[in-house]
C-alpha cells in the first residue's frame, strides 16, 4: 500500500515549540486520512528539525473506496400527490443525482418517506490530500505566530520556505502559504548548501536527508548528542558532564547535525560561586557543565554545535566559545566586585525604586508587608519571644536587596541565590544568608524546598504576601491566565508546610493565610477566597506530588483538619500531618472496611441533608438525656470515643489507628440504621437523632470527608 510523506520546510522554529508541533501535525494528518477513509493498517512516523516538520504515514489507500449512502427525503405524503411526483420529490431527486423513478419508499419510526441510494465515487488520495492538507497545516497551534507575506494571507510560527508532499512517487500538488509542494527537500544549510535534495519516494526520506547532513529523527539526534557529549568528555580523565535533560532537549531542537565540543576556561574562574558559573554556561550559553566524580565543577564546558568541522574549525569554534565565556565570567566577577561597594544592608532604601507591581508599589513596600507576615508566622511557630526573631527580621529586610545589584540585573534567574552569597560574604549570620538563598524555593513541583527554618518562614511570608496582595487587587488566576505564577507560589506554600521539617509539625495553612490578613473582620471574604485558592493547591499537591487518588485528595481537602472553620477552633494541626494522613488513607481506601463505613456515613449525611432541605432545624450535638434506643445510645458513646481517638492519634501521626477507629463505626452505625427510625413524629426525638448523626459525620469529617470515598 502507498506511503504518504509531508515535509514543511521553514525558517528556524523556536526550539521550545517544535516537539508539540511535530506531534500535532502527525495527529492531524492521521485523523484527516482516517476521516477521508484513506487509512488501512498503517504506521505513522513523525520527524522534526529546527527547519522542518515532517510526517510519514505507511498504509495509505491510493484511492478512496466507493461508498453507498442512503439519503432520506420529504415524507411520502409531500412527495406524491395523486400518485404523481410533486416539485419537492423532483427537487430531492435532482439534489441526490438520481432519476425520480429511482426514488424508493423508506419506512422509519417517524413514518413513510422517500429516499434514494446514492453511489459515491471514491476520489484519488492525491486529490483528497491536496484539498485537505492546507487546512491541517493552517490549524497548527503556535504559542506565538507571525505574518510575513504581503496582504497577510496567513500566520505561521516562521515563514515557510518549501513544501514536500509525496504519495509514493507521485507529488501531491498541495498549495499553502504561496508554496506548491514538490518532491524536493533541503539539507543542512552549511554542510550541504542550497542544492535541492530530491526525494523519489517517502521510504528514502530519512536516509536521503542523512546524506544531506540532517538527522530528521529527534530521538536519533538526542542519542547522537548524548554519545557526542560522552565522547568529548573522555578527553578529561575522571570527568563527566552534568546531566540536564532540559538542556539536552533544547540543543536537540536547535540542531540538524549535532556534534559536541569540549572547551576550557581559566581555573581562577572556579573561585566564582558555582551557581553563577553554571547559570552562565547552562542558561546563557546552552553549554553543559563538566564535573569530577564528586560533582565538583571542572574548568571545562561542552558546547553542542549544529555542524561538523575538522581540527582547524574546531579550534576556531572552541576559541570563540571560550572568548564569550571568559567575557561572561569576567562580567560576573566585575559585577561581584562592583556590588560589594554597597553592602546589602545599605541597599534596603534602594528598594523604593524597584517596582514589585504597578498597583502594589515597590519592593520596599513589599518587604514591609513581608515583615508583618513573617512576624505573625514566627509567633505562631515559636511564641512571642522567639530566639531567632532578630535573624528572621534581618532575613526578611535583606531578602529583596539583591534586586538592586548588577549581578541580578544581569542574571535575573539568580535572584535570592545572589542575596544569599552576598550576605554570606558580607558577614551576615549564616542562618540569615541561608534563608535568603532559599527564599524562592521551590521553583517547581519537583525542585528543592527551603531546608532551614528561617528559609521556610521567609519563603512562606513572601509567597503568601504576594498571593494576598494580588487577590486584594483582584489579580486572580483564571483558566490559563496566571501571569504572576500565583498557583506556583501557592503550591510552594503547601509543599513547604507539608514537607519542611521545621514547620510541618506546627504550622497550618490557616496560620499562613491569617498571617497576611490578620483577622480583620472586613477582610473575611478575602480570607475565605485566599483559603479556598490555597485548598485547591493542596488538592493538586496531594494528587500530583503525593500521587494520591482524586477522591482521597478531595476528602482530605474538605476535612476539618485541612480547612479549619470556626467550629473547630483550637484544633489546628501541623500541615505535615494532613499530608501524612492523606497518604495513609490513600493506601487503605480500597479496603472493605473503609468502603462499608464510607457508605454508612454517606447515608447519615444524606438523611441530614434531606431533613435540612425540608426546613428541619437541629443542633450539631445530641442531648444524652433524649437518647432512647440502646443502639443510638451505643452510637453516641462510640462516636465520643472515636472522636477522642482521632484527635489523639492524628496528632501523634498514628494514621492507621485513626482510620481503624473510623472503620470501627461500621457496627454501631449498622445497628443504628437497623433498629432506629430517625424521622419519627416526635419532634424532639427526631431532632436529637439528626443531631447525633450530625455529630457522627462531623467527628469523622474532621479527618476526612468519607462521603467522597464511598464511590471508589
Amino acid at each position, binding site marked *: 500500500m502507498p506511503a504518504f510523506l509531508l515535509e514543511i520546510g521553514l525558517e528556524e522554529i523556536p526550539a521550545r515549540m517544535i516537539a508539540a508541533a511535530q506531534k500535532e501535525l502527525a495527529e492531524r494528518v492521521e485523523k484527516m486520512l482516517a476521516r477521508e477513509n484513506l487509512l488501512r493498517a498503517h504506521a505513522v512516523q513523525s520527524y522534526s528539525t529546527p527547519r522542518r516538520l515532517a510526517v510519514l504515514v505507511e498504509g495509505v489507500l491510493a484511492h478512496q473506496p466507493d461508498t453507498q449512502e442512503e439519503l432520506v427525503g420529504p415524507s411520502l405524503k409531500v412527495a406524491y400527490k395523486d400518485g404523481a411526483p410533486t416539485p419537492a420529490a423532483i427537487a430531492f431527486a435532482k439534489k441526490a443525482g438520481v432519476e425520480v423513478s429511482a426514488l424508493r419508499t423508506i419506512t422509519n419510526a417517524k413514518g413513510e418517506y422517500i429516499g434514494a441510494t446514492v453511489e459515491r465515487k471514491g476520489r484519488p488520495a492525491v486529490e483528497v490530500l491536496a484539498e485537505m492538507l492546507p487546512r491541517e497545516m493552517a490549524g497548527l497551534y503556535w504559542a506565538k*505566530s507571525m505574518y510575513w507575506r504581503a496582504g497577510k494571507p496567513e500566520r505561521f510560527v516562521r515563514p515557510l520556505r518549501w513544501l514536500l508532499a509525496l504519495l509514493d512517487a507521485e507529488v501531491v500538488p498541495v498549495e499553502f502559504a504561496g508554496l506548491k509542494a514538490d518532491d524536493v527537500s533541503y539539507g543542512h544549510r552549511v554542510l550541504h548548501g542550497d542544492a535541492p535534495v530530491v526525494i523519489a519516494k517517502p521510504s528514502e526520506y530519512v536516509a536521503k536527508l542523512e546524506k544531506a547532513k540532517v538527522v530528521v529523527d529527534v530521538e536519533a539526534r538526542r542519542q547522537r548528542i548524548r554519545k557526542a557529549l560522552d565522547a568529548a568528555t573522555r578527553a578529561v580523565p575522571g570527568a563527566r558532564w552534568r546531566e540536564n535533560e532540559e538542556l539536552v532537549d533544547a540543543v536537540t531542537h536547535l540542531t540538524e547535525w549535532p556534534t559536541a565540543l569540549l572547551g576550557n576556561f*581559566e581555573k581562577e574562574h572556579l573561585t566564582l560561586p558555582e551557581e553563577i558559573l553554571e547559570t552562565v554556561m547552562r542558561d546563557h550559553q546552552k553549554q553543559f557543565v563538566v564535573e569530577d566524580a564528586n560533582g565538583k565543577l571542572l574548568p571545562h564546558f561542552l558546547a553542542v554545535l549544529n555542524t561538523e568541522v575538522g581540527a582547524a574549525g574546531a579550534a576556531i569554534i572552541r576559541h570563540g*566559545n571560550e572568548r564569550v565565556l571568559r567575557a561572561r565570567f569576567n562580567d560576573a566577577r566585575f559585577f561581584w566586585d562592583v556590588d560589594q561597594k554597597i553592602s546589602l544592608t545599605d541597599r534596603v532604601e534602594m528598594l523604593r*525604586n524597584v517596582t514589585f507591581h504597578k498597583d502594589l508599589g515597590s519592593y520596599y513596600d513589599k518587604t514591609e508587608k513581608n515583615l508583618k507576615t513573617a512576624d505573625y508566622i514566627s509567633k505562631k511557630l515559636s511564641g512571642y519571644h522567639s530566639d531567632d526573631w532578630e535573624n528572621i527580621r534581618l532575613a526578611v529586610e535583606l531578602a529583596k536587596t539583591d534586586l538592586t545589584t548588577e549581578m541580578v540585573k544581569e542574571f535575573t534567574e539568580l535572584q535570592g541565590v545572589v542575596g544569599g552569597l552576598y550576605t554570606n560574604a558580607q558577614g551576615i549570620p549564616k542562618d540569615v544568608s541561608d534563608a535568603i538563598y532559599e527564599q524562592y524555593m521551590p521553583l517547581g513541583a519537583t525542585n528543592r524546598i527551603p531546608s532551614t527554618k528561617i528559609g521556610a518562614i521567609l519563603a512562606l511570608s513572601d509567597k503568601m504576601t504576594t498571593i494576598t496582595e494580588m487577590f486584594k487587587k483582584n489579580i486572580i488566576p483564571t483558566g490559563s491566565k496566571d501571569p504572576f505564577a500565583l498557583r506556583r507560589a501557592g503550591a510552594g506554600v503547601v509543599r513547604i508546610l507539608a514537607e519542611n521539617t521545621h514547620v510541618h509539625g506546627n504550622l497550618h495553612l490557616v496560620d499562613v493565610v491569617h498571617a497576611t490578613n490578620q483577622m480583620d473582620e472586613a477582610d473575611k471574604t478575602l480570607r475565605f477566597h485566599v483559603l479556598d485558592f490555597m485548598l485547591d493547591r493542596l488538592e493538586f499537591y496531594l494528587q500530583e506530588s503525593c500521587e494520591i487518588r482524586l477522591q482521597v485528595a478531595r476528602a482530605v481537602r474538605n476535612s476539618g483538619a485541612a480547612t479549619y472553620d470556626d467550629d473547630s477552633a483550637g484544633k489546628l494541626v501541623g500541615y505535615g500531618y494532613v499530608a501524612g494522613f492523606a497518604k495513609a488513607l490513600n493506601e487503605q481506601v480500597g479496603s472493605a472496611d473503609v468502603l462499608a463505613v464510607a457508605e454508612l456515613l454517606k447515608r447519615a449525611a444524606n438523611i441530614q441533608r434531606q431533613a435540612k432541605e425540608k426546613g428541619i432545624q437541629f443542633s450539631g450535638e445530641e442531648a444524652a438525656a433524649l437518647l432512647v434506643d440502646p443502639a443510638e445510645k451505643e452510637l453516641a458513646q462510640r462516636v465520643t470515643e472515636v472522636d477522642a481517638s482521632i484527635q489523639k492519634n492524628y496528632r501523634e501521626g498514628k494514621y492507621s489507628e485513626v482510620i481503624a477507629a473510623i472503620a470501627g463505626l461500621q457496627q454501631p452505625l449498622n445497628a443504628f440504621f437497623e433498629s432506629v427510625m430517625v424521622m419519627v413524629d416526635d419532634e424532639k426525638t427526631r431532632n436529637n437523632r439528626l443531631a447525633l448523626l450530625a455529630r457522627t459525620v462531623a467527628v469523622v469529617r474532621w479527618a476526612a470527608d468519607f462521603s467522597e470515598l464511598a464511590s471508589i
Partner: protein
Amino acid sequence: MRMKTAVTTATSNAVLKSALTFQELLFTLQGFWSARGCILQQPYDVEVGAGTMSPETFLRVLGPKPYSVAYAQPSRRPADGRYGENPNRLFKHTQLQVILKPPPSNIQELYLESLAAIGIDLRQHDIKFEEDNWESPTLGAWGVGWQVMLDGLEITQFTYFQQCGGIDLDPITGEITYGLERIAAFLQDVDSIYDIVWMRDAKTGRAVTYGEVRLAEELQFSVYNFEKADVEKLWQHLDLYEAECKALLDAARPTLEGEDAVARSRVPVLAIFDLCLKCSHLFNLLDARGAISVTERVGVIARVRALAVGVAKAYTAQQTVVGSAAVIGAVS
C-alpha cells in the same frame, strides 16, 4: 581600572592580521547591502537608544510602500554606561541597521552571505538562529525573530516587525541589526571593545584603537548620565518637548483629516517625531539618574508611548494621500 583578562588559549594570529578594522567592517556591510538594493543612510542626528528609533525604521515601516535601507546608528543607552571600565559594555554602541520591506524570501541567505563578506567562513563556524522576540513598550512596537549566535556569541538581532506605533504592519518588514563592536571584537579576536582596531594607516601600518577614539566619551558621558545631569532640568526638558510634540500633533490633526493636499504635505510630522525621540532619550537619562520613582515610571513610559503612537498615526494619515512618491529601494 581596566579588567585584566587572562588569555591562555592560543589566538589565531593569521585570522587577526587579515581581520577587518572597525571602519572596514562598516564599509563592507554597507557595500554589501548597497549592492543588494539598499539606500545607504547616515546615522540619525538625534539621540536614540537603538537603530529602530530612527525615522528610517520607525516611520518607514509604516504604510504600504516598499523600502530598503541600511545605516549605522550610534545608540545611546545611558544606564548601560560603565565609565569605560567594563570591556564588554558601552553607553553608546554602534548598530548597523538593515531594513527590508517587504522581506525577500531569501532574507536569511542574504544575511549569511553578508557574514561571508566580512570574512566569516561558515564552514569553520557554528551558527544558530535562536528564538528571540522583540518588543518596545515605549514605541508600541513588536516583532518575532531570532538572535543569531556565532560560536556562542550573539552577533545579530533578526526581527520580522509585526506592529509599530500601535499600528499593524502590512507589508511586514524584515530588520537585521548587527552589533558592530561585538562583531569587530570577534573578528579581531580581542577581549576588550577598547582594543578593537578602529583603523590602520595604509602606509605606516599604525593602528588607532576604539579606546583612543571613544574611551573619553564613555567616561565623560557616564559621569554626566549618572552624576551630573540636572534632574530638575531634565524633567523640565521632558515637559517642554512633550508639550510641544503634543501641541503640534493636536494642531496637525484637522489638517491631516482634511482634503488640502498641499497643507497636508506641509504638516511637520518628521520634526514632531524628533520631539518624541527627545522625550524618549530624556526618559532614559532620568532613569539612569535614578530619578524616576516606581509610581512615576509606568506613567512616563505611557507618556512617551502616547507621543510615538500619535506620530505613527499622523505619519500614516499623511502617507495615505501624499504617498505618490515612487517605490524606492526594493531588494531584488
